[in-house]
């Protein structure tokens, strides 16, 4: 795809003058207008665009919120309430920002699951996948630090628990925790540095997004069949086909987003965070934001010592290990076939994995007692088995279904016996994941 020659021809004198000096319009034209995309992309491929919109939205609302927010423990909570009550449109901007974080994560989870289902991480897209994992890590760090800023009870105790992870590291753990906190407990220095980093990280995300898109444009997009583009008939131009499809995806996504902002703005939050932080009183149940819940469940599932590793370090290692699995996926999956469409067993295990991830999320929101602990242990076991056993073994023993010779053949096969409806860029419902 990248090897295709640029077809950009500036039409005006100014255009030619510019093109000879700094061909930015050419870059935009080649990347977002003439850029060829597989003709069979379905709506699961619109989340890249949706994620870009969410990043921009978070940065814009974040910058204006920072103009009213005060990062001092005695003023932070009040300044957020001032934003809600006194600042013109402050309530809207804050709800856009807090719900925006959740919707950013909804989109990124769908984007990741899309990649897992269609095997988008396989050669030559390993680096593209890893850059995505790095973005996800940066998003988690940003989301965590942002949640601390309102200085409510969940902010404070979430920060205490999460920075407490680092004390599990032998020898240097306590030093690292003090380095993060700037003290012996979460306090004013912690709030100040989290604010500074919360402002910085989104721009680092934007930087990695540029690399992510760059890597994408070198190897080209994968597609629901997982077969590489072979000829010109396999592709359509990015504009108008993908642009319009992305635009519709965004509009539908933003409708859901708007529903949350205007009708249930606190649905995804926690009421305890409307109580100002109290360093001497821990809330009855500390729960992180919903998007961390599966990992939180894994953390709490390790209640036993494993050899020399005590349960605390074990839990922290399991939690970080769960994220590390994602980075290794390109090498854990041994199958030559990308798409789950042609892998009946993988398709089954994929959906079990999705169900298991949702189960882990639910368990993360439950108190750590009784049957919940055992369930979380089983679900954690399946989580790791999926990556470390099922993915490698399945690729060796599974018999995939016959692959079409090309994307075009796959598309025409799907529409066989139908009307003369143009097949380009339309997806069949069963591949929508």
């Amino acid at each position, binding site marked *: 795809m990248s090897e295709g020659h640029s077809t950009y021809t500036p039409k005006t004198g100014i255009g030619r003058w510019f093109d000879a000096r700094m061909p930015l319009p050419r870059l935009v034209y080649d990347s977002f207008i003439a850029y060829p995309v597989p003709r069979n992309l379905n709506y699961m491929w619109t989340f890249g665009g949706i994620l870009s919109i969410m990043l921009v939205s978070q940065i814009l609302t974040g910058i204006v919120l920072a103009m009213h927010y005060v990062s001092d423990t005695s003023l932070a909570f009040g300044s957020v309430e001032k934003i809600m009550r006194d600042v013109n449109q402050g309530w809207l901007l804050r709800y856009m920002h807090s719900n925006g974080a959740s919707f950013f994560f909804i989109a990124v989870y769908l984007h990741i699951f899309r990649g897992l289902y269609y095997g988008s991480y396989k050669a030559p897209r390993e680096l593209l996948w890893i850059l995505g994992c790095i973005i996800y890590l940066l998003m988690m760090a940003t989301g965590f630090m942002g949640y601390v800023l309102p200085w409510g009870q969940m902010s404070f*105790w979430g920060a205490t628990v999460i920075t*407490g992870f680092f004390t599990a590291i032998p020898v240097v753990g306590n030093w690292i925790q003090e380095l993060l906190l700037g*003290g*012996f407990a*979460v306090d004013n*220095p912690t709030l100040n540095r989290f604010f500074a980093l919360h402002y910085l990280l989104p721009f680092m995300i934007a930087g990695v997004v540029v690399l992510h898109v760059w890597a994408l444009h070198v190897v080209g997009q994968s597609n629901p069949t997982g077969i590489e583009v072979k000829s010109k008939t396999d592709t359509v131009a990015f504009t108008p086909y993908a642009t319009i499809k992305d635009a519709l995806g965004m509009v539908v996504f933003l409708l859901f987003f708007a529903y949350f902002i205007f009708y249930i703005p606190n649905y995804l939050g926690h009421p305890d965070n409307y109580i100002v932080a109290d*360093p001497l*009183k*821990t809330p009855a149940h500390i729960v992180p934001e919903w998007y961390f819940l599966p990992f939180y469940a894994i953390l709490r599932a390790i209640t036993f010592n494993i050899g020399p590793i005590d349960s*605390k370090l074990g839990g922290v290692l399991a939690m970080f290990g769960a994220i590390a699995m994602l980075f290794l996926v390109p090498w854990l999956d041994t199958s030559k076939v990308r798409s789950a469409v042609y892998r009946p067993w993988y398709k089954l295990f994929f959906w079990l994995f999705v169900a298991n991830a949702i189960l882990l999320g639910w368990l993360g929101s439950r108190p750590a007692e009784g049957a919940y602990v055992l369930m979380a242990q089983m679900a954690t076991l399946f989580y790791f088995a999926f990556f470390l056993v099922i993915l490698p073994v399945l690729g060796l023993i599974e018999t995939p279904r016959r692959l079409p010779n090309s994307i075009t053949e796959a598309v025409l096969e799907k529409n066989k016996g139908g009307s003369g409806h143009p097949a380009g860029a339309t997806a069949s419902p069963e591949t929508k994941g």
Partner: protein
Amino acid sequence: MSATDETHDPNRRDFLYIATGMAGVVGAASVAWPFIDQMQPDASTRALASVEVDVASLQPGMSLTVKWRGKPVFIRNRTPEEVKAAQEVKLEELKDPLARNANLASDAQATDLDRSAGKGKENWLVMVGVCTHLGCIPLGQQGEYNGWFCPCHGSVYDTSGRIRKGPAPENMAVPVFSFISDTKIRIG
């Protein structure tokens, strides 16, 4: 210099390259250090603020929480039953056999005496009220051992503040403290 010439002997120029490179590394590290160091607790935080607490009003079975270094410190005048229950526990039943008492040697055993304020003051328990798992504040006189219970991840401590069940790895820490009079404790 001449990378293709594999047989050449180290000369003056090689030495200069290595020396310059090393100077660059040391320079970069010494510039980087202030950026890392500023993250550490500052002088006002480090200044070991010690607190003095009047415990005259604490009858047996009553507790007091004071803030020290941003963390809560539990001071409890334990009932004779609580002390007795803690003394009867055998050391091999404990998940963490060390006293974790900053006033004693680091290898002191987690007997109830070594957890408490010492001989003659066995009823007094002074400890940092922070769960050793992930830093929540346990609730007093709750849980299976009628000691402390951490609501976050279910760690259970006994009446001596020793970890008995759940994910926490260590007994709750006893800070440096001393009785400066019969009714006054200085922490830190």
